[in-house]
């Protein structure tokens, strides 16, 4: 495999995605940040309005900077089954799976989605760059792998009316797609891929197109969605939605194992509450298997908890205690007032054996009132389900709104 690296790539400190110009048309606040090499909006207009587009109409979010890889070859299934702790024989062509992958110590490197686009071809979509991980995993396997991050433009199209808009846009039988289905559709310039997937805990789709189709698909969706208050959103609105939906973020809930310097600072799938993604007895020497078997036997160090916290002050960066002024047992990673679920959500970690569903946990919350720091104690309850998990997320066909 040849990897062509542009000699002057380093001069281009910040790249723009193929949707940049389109997003700029909506930009009223000029608040952008760097996501990997790309510049992407934090917010384009107003966070609240953008958040409610996700929950009440249709939102469009540029996910081009996500790390995207194509893995192809006669050994593709064997390769994926060794890389991922899931039983990949169960993921059929035309299906997408949420997954994590680990190092040999059973610590999570990243989470992402895996797309089985053909019998011998997968796409892997991740938060962090994975080329080196794929390279070491490919030793001894008959596969080719390539980074397609810069070759595939992608948008996440989320909200209760997204199915309707896609139908209006002419994507036939889109309503028959089940959660985690993927299909190819004709579009000027070549087939595009649509998957029913997302990062909002809601009805939604992700669209994967060639760079030169990006503006066309954008315009096409907005034409079809004219009457549905659809709008592009920035990362801040998405962040609220994903916390409300109880979803993890790399570099927030866990430090990617291959970037973690201090021994013991990475986390295992069990510690992230993702044990359901690990199939220890699938009969494959997948990465982390031996360490995870030992962890099953000896117990984990932490437990991931979703907390319903009293009051309306987000427990951001709060320490967690077993009682008011009690023993420190953990910390919060992500917190937000969930506008639709109308609960005060915190995601965090507590030491085992704390944090069983129904346990009371206290948060020491610091907050500012016109620059003056204040502190309050808030009781929280460990809950089983995410604050936001509506039936419409998985309902097929979605309601014809």
């Amino acid at each position, binding site marked *: 495999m040849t990897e062509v690296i542009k000699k002057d790539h380093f001069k281009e400190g910040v790249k723009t995605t193929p949707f940049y110009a389109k997003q700029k048309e909506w930009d009223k606040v000029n608040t952008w940040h760097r996501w990997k090499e790309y510049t992407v909006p934090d917010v384009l207009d107003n966070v609240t309005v953008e958040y409610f587009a996700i929950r009440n109409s249709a939102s469009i979010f540029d996910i081009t900077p996500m790390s995207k890889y194509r893995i192809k070859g006669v050994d593709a299934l*064997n390769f994926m089954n*060794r*890389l991922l702790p899931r039983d990949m024989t169960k993921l059929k062509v035309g299906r997408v799976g949420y997954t994590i992958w680990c*190092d*040999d*110590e059973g610590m999570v490197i990243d989470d992402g989605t895996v797309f089985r686009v053909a019998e011998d071809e997968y796409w892997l979509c991740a938060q962090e760059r994975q080329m080196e*991980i794929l390279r*070491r*995993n490919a*030793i*001894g*396997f008959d596969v080719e792998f390539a980074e397609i991050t810069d070759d595939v433009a992608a948008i996440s199209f989320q909200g209760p009316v997204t199915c309707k808009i896609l139908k209006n846009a002419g994507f036939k039988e889109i309503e028959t797609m089940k959660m985690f289905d993927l299909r190819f559709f004709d579009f000027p310039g070549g087939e595009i891929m649509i998957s029913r997937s997302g990062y909002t805990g809601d009805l939604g789709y992700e669209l994967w197109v060639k760079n030169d189709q990006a503006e066309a698909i954008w315009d096409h969706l907005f034409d079809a969605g004219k009457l549905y208050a659809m709008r592009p959103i920035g990362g801040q609105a998405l962040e609220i939605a994903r916390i409300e939906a109880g979803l993890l973020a790399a570099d927030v809930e866990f430090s990617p194992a291959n970037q973690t310097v201090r021994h013991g600072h990475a986390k295992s799938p069990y510690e992230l509450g993702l044990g359901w993604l690990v199939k220890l007895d699938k*009969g*494959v*020497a*997948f*990465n*982390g*298997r*031996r360490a995870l078997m030992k962890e099953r036997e000896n117990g984990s160090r932490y437990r991931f908890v979703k907390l319903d916290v009293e009051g309306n002050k987000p427990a951001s960066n709060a320490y967690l205690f077993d009682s008011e002024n009690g023993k420190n047992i953990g910390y919060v990673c992500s917190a937000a007032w969930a506008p639709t679920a109308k609960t005060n959500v915190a995601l965090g970690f507590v030491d085992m054996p704390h944090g069983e569903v129904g346990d009371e946990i206290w948060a020491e919350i610091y907050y500012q009132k016109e620059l003056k720091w204040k502190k309050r104690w808030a009781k929280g309850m460990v809950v089983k389900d995410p604050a936001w998990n509506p039936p419409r997320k998985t309902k097929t066909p979605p309601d014809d709104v």
Partner: protein
Amino acid sequence: MTKNYDVIIVGGGHNGLVCAAYLADAGKKVVVLEANDQVGGAAVTDTLTDGKKVSSCAQFLNQLNGSVEKDLNLASHGLKMAANNVPTIALNADGNHLTLTSTTASGANISADDAAAYTKFMRYMRDYASTLNFLMVSPPIDIFNPDFADKMTAIKLGWKLRFGLGAEKMSEFLRQVGMNIFDVLDDDFDHELLKGTLAFDGVLGTHAGPRSPGTVLTYLYRLASGDEGALDVPEGGMGAVSDAISAAATSAGADIKVSARVKNVNVENCKVVGVTLESGDVISAPVVVSNADPRTTVMSIVGPRHFEADFVKRIDNVRMRGTTAKLHIALKALPNFKGLSEDELSNRLVIAPTHKDMERAFNHVKYKEVSEHPMMEIAIPSIADPSLAADGHVLSATVQYAPYHLKGGWTDEAKNAFMDACIDRIAAYAPDIREQIEMAVLLTPVDLEASYGMAGGNWHHGELTLDQMLMLRPAPEASRYALPLDGMYICGAGAHPGGGVMGAAGKNAAEAILKGEAS
């Protein structure tokens, strides 16, 4: 055909045989499967030409583990030495040679100061070596999960360094142990030939020149096992050592099969279940031990997909660059070496005029070339052991440097040219050698890999450098002989304590298997 054993050993090198002997003695049903038509791996005696035999690779026995020799009672199985503790003669072109014993240096106009410095140097080196030698026989410390024995080993090492050596020697040891031997020799000596010869011993069998860091350690390594590095010559060649171990294994009840090349290790549900031979025969056992080098074991015999990726990457990265070639010559009669009697010719002869020359010879390897002026260790074992040559003699030379990856490849032309260069080199000391040559063979690292299965033609199944020793050999997850695959072990030189005809890896592996050690 399906047969069942408790343990299958893939490869009948001397370590595989040692491992088999210990396991069989402990009551295990063991079979050794050797691909070649005789056991011994690289410790074999092969026919060179009619009536003449040579030790194919290793020629001096300097590291055989004492407890292995005793436990297996190798003497009762026919192991005899033709010569013990042979001195080294450093050849000088003018015939005024330098003779080195384990304590003294004489000849070649060596000054009294240098001779005294040599005696002191050797005393220090032996003291360092005897501080470390217990590490060579015990399994490496498990630093993540140390048991009582591991903790005792660590305490013992600390105690031996501080109170065994004493403050002054310990400080000197710590200064020197990571150094290159070139600088240490310059500190201690003026005599060029002496420095050349000691530098040679520091880099023999390694991908290193005397200026490479860690070459004091490789020098110590030679002394830290066996009988303080004393060089013995086994009667019947190195194959006799393997034959004696093989006899010990057989008498303990092990089955030994030759010409039985293993195609792959069979793995079911992440557990080893046996092996399939190239013949198609399947042999089952819950434990398989590989005597092959770690890379060949993981990458070919078992297959990378049966291991997790970080481990595979680590094994794939083990440095195994062979840079040593072997030259065998069948002689009609002994050549005349200037200034050496026939008796003296039975000693170990070294051509390494200065440590600077040695370093220059190494320079070529970095650029995938053979050394312009190769350095070598020569033995004419048929003098002390006439059984090796019915008439005439055999001469074997271990030659450096010959890279595994030669620019343009090891064509017949390249081989012949290097062989000529080596013979020319000998002819500088024995002008009539060409007249006595009946036939000659050169084994390059590529040939050594093909004949004895060692990847890269590296004699030690992995270069002996600090980062590939002890608990890092061949990788932390496999340093206690168990690989991270249930039922799979290694017992060869690629495991601690490493290469040389030592047998310690085989013994340690057997003990790990009997203890049920897992990665």
